[in-house]
């Protein structure tokens, strides 16, 4: 078929419903993720010392960074639905900046000599369960964000996939952090943040396959 015939054929096709604005999707996804996060938190329960922990700047900062991680990744996943990122390319770098800040924050705490949070986990204490719990919590939001992104036409499927999974894993991390009374940085690094990084890499691979159009 030559190009002129193709153009004639495409012109005959009926118009498609226009995709709504990123603001609309952002509000909708934000509401759904908050509701889901609250539900997951209710199911996992809240740690008994949460109020005390929230008065500690380090814990509060970690929670804020996790919240920002969820918001920036969800926003970037929504922008990635549009081929031109809705002409807000700068926003797609925010998740990386927040994740790097979170890693830097963890490393900074690891270097502190007498941080009471820097305790080694007890022998026989759980580890893998945390990663599995984060993955379980992240499963539904991941599927939801992927479904949403598939409505668009992403030209960065790898990045969009990693944003989707990172936003969902962020919810898993946050709910787990608010429910588990274990502040060992070794444990957090090994069983919370490293698995999250792996999930993001997995999300990128899934995105490449699932977000084809």
């Amino acid at each position, binding site marked *: 078929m030559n*190009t002129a015939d193709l*153009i004639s054929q495409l*012109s005959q096709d009926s118009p498609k419903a226009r995709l709504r604005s990123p603001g609309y999707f952002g509000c909708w996804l934000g509401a759904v993720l908050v509701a889901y996060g609250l539900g997951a938190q209710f199911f996992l329960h809240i740690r008994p010392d949460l109020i005390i922990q929230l008065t500690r700047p380090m814990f509060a900062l970690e929670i804020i960074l996790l919240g920002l991680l969820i918001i920036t990744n969800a926003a970037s996943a929504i922008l990635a639905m549009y081929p031109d990122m809705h002409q807000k390319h700068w926003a797609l770098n925010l998740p990386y900046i927040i994740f790097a800040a979170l890693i830097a924050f963890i490393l900074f705490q690891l270097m502190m000599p007498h941080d009471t949070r820097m305790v080694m986990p007890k022998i026989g204490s759980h580890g893998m369960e945390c990663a599995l719990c984060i993955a379980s919590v992240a499963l539904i939001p991941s599927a939801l964000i992927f479904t949403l992104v598939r409505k*668009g036409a992403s*030209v960065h499927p790898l990045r969009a996939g990693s944003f989707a999974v990172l936003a969902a894993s962020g919810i898993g991390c946050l709910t787990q952090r608010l429910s588990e009374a274990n502040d060992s940085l070794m444990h957090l690094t090994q069983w919370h943040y490293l698995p999250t990084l792996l999930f993001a890499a997995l999300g990128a691979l899934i995105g490449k396959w699932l977000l084809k*159009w």
Partner: protein
Amino acid sequence: MVTSGSKKSDKYAEFTTIFRAGLAGDALAYNHFLQAITPILRRVALKKLPAADAEDALQEILISIHKARHTYDGERPIMPWLLAIAQFRINDALHKVYAGSRRECMNIDELTEVLADVTETASAKESIDAILKDVPEREQRILTMMHVEGYTAKETGQRLGMKETAVKVAAHRAVKKLRETFGT
């Protein structure tokens, strides 16, 4: 005076207008839009791809623009949106081109001329000349014709004005002399 920059932006504004009309259901406007952007997209494709693949890539880009038309709202500049899709499909086409070139194999028949040239290289001829330097000139010629140039004894005799048997005897003597020289 109208500058080239403002002319370009006017053209792009026109693209936006007709594209919006097309998205609203005006098939003719949509046809005009696709026709108007085709030369621009063709130039973009030709910059990155071989001419043979550029037209296929252009059609892929047009189909992708059609598929992704719902992601454009008509409020933001259209060219970044168009070029993002074009670049995405050109990258796909480049992957195919490179993957194809890795799998491509050459038929041995296509190398016939090249291989013939290899046998005629100066270095090969020089080494044969060095071997034949102690052999009389007429026998050198016979050996060259029969063992390098591929003539039969009969053809060699015809070209040198000798009988076939005489050629064979001369060739045999020359080979014997060479064997003695090299001790084989």
